[in-house]
């Protein structure tokens, strides 16, 4: 294995996956501006009906965060169905002010020749795909969340010049997208008359099994894990692999603490064991790391570390 220079990874705040009010959004990102996160992804990636901020407001917010020293990336909608959604995508991809995260191949097509980030739903699983998209202008990629440590070792060894790797290290796993809105369905409402019920669930709705075990999170047309993927204990591994950016996915509570913990970790102010002591508090429904180990995503290998610190 080639020896890679170990450098301090940058921290990114992924796009918000839930529907918050304008007030909640602005307050949250104001706090983010003062946090040690390096990169902030903005924009609506789940549902085009969520319009607490219009596109101009997102741009204004982006400029504010840029002035605060953050690299700002605008994320595109993941599932594009309506003509109006495609129109909005066209406008977004024409803008040259910020780097764009493509969450669908339609966005890649519209960004051809420009620099772009390929989000986790673009399905990059192998070297040849990585190389092809790099030739098209991709400068950072976020692997599919089901890609584990072993394939990543291979891909990192052979990755093309000039492309960065960003990995989800903290957050609920984005697992599926649908034509159907599950939040509306849970309220017996048709999707076309959803009454914006997602606003009532700043961290999505819990879906449990009939044994009342937390299983999934319903978030409009998206399905997420109920558990939080936590790779903090893999920090040294991630650095050795040359992962450039660590992604944290926003929640309504605890996100700033999570950012601080990863910042402390990369600055060697705390140990992974000390971070582990916080996990239960920051991920009250539990954490998981199975995908990293090439297993079922919901599995967890952390007991030993967490046990040792409690």
């Amino acid at each position, binding site marked *: 294995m080639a020896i890679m220079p170990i450098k301090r990874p940058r921290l990114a705040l992924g796009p918000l996956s839930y529907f918050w009010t304008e007030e909640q959004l602005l307050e949250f990102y104001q706090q983010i501006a003062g946090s040690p996160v390096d990169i902030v992804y903005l924009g609506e990636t789940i549902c085009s009906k969520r319009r607490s901020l219009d596109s101009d407001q997102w741009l204004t917010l982006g400029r504010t965060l840029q002035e605060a020293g953050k690299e700002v990336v605008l994320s595109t909608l993941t599932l594009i169905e*309506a003509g109006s959604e495609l129109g909005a995508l066209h406008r977004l991809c024409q803008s040259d002010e910020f780097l764009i995260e493509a969450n669908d191949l339609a966005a890649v*097509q519209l960004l051809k020749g420009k620099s772009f980030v390929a989000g986790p739903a673009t399905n990059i699983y192998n*070297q040849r*795909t990585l190389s092809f998209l790099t030739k098209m202008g991709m400068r950072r990629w976020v692997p599919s969340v089901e890609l584990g440590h072993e394939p990543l070792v291979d891909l990192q060894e052979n990755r093309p010049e000039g492309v960065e790797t960003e990995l989800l290290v903290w957050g609920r796993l984005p697992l*599926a997208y649908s034509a*159907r809105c599950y939040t509306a369905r849970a309220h017996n409402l048709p999707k076309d008359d959803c009454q914006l019920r997602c606003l009532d669930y700043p961290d999505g709705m819990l879906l449990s099994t009939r044994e009342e075990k937390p299983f999934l999170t319903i978030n409009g047309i998206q399905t997420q894990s109920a558990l939080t993927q936590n790779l903090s204990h893999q920090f040294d591994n991630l650095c050795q692999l040359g992962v450039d950016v660590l992604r944290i996915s926003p929640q309504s509570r605890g996100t700033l603490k999570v950012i601080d913990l990863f910042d402390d970790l990369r600055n060697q102010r705390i140990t992974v064991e000390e971070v582990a002591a916080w996990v239960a508090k920051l991920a009250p429904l539990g954490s998981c790391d199975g995908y990293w180990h090439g297993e079922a995503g*919901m599995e967890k290998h952390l007991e030993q570390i967490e046990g040792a610190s409690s």
Partner: protein
Amino acid sequence: MELVCPAGNLPALKAAVDNGADAVYMGFRDDTNARHFAGLNFNHNKAELGIDYAHDRGARVFVAINTFPQPSGWKRWQAAVDSAADLGVDVLIVADIGVMDYARERWPDLTLHLSVQGSATTHEAIRFYSEAFGIRRAVLPRVLSMKQVEQVINESPVEIEVFGFGSLCVMVEGRCLLSSYVTGRSPNTFGACSPGSHVRWEETPTALESRLNGVLIDRYERDEPAGYPTLCKGRFQVGGHTFYALEEPTSLNTLPILPELKRMGVAAIKVEGRQRSPAYVAKVTRVLRAAIDACNLDPDGFTPDAAWLKELETVSEGVQTTLGALHRPWQ
């Protein structure tokens, strides 16, 4: 409209061809295709026999290599592409950009169709695959309404195939990792959803429970019919209610809207079900053949024959059918 039917094995292939399929689609016996089930699919010898059988009777043969290879498996996908090309198949159905790039470079004359696993829901996404790899057709995910399908067809640089009958994915194909979240195996990486190897049935004093890798997918009372625990089709609790939170066990059936699909310019109708029996394939192919022929003859006067619908209902998952996302209120 071309009728494209599933061939999980040689008897199913023959059943499809004999009952009027214009084309059949198959996969090899490994994880390079999205129906990687035990005992299913074709080795080289059986593929040869099947291709000859279909070609002798004027039917085309498509081979699905529509999963996403990871570095350690890359050579297997490459070999599958080479093998399909050597066999002289008519079309490769592909989803992964790397696989398409390889196929285009190594076999420039081989016709490529974008698999439903490629998740292309807009003409711009289709344009990407068309410009980059010269795909000639795209299969649409089962998430678009009729109006949206028509918009895609109007702008698409290539022809469009839609699912016409069979089990229904409620999630966008190629973008659903629920199965690997629970079992480590997903359609994208392993070619299977909710794999049988992880299914467990448990009898309790009052009920029958189905589990997938330990996760309770559903619980059936004594007199309730039990279904396969495809994990999106179980009953779960949300907000204090227990219900089919994601999807009921139903089948897609587009028979009632065939003239509409034809008018919009749909190039091909696909039947799902490579995992189903030759008898299923025979029955569904026969009905779809009769329906498409009737629709071609007189699209304005077309109404689905009651006998066809009855026949399809006997083979539907959950014994009920839906238009799925094509019918807006379903969404």
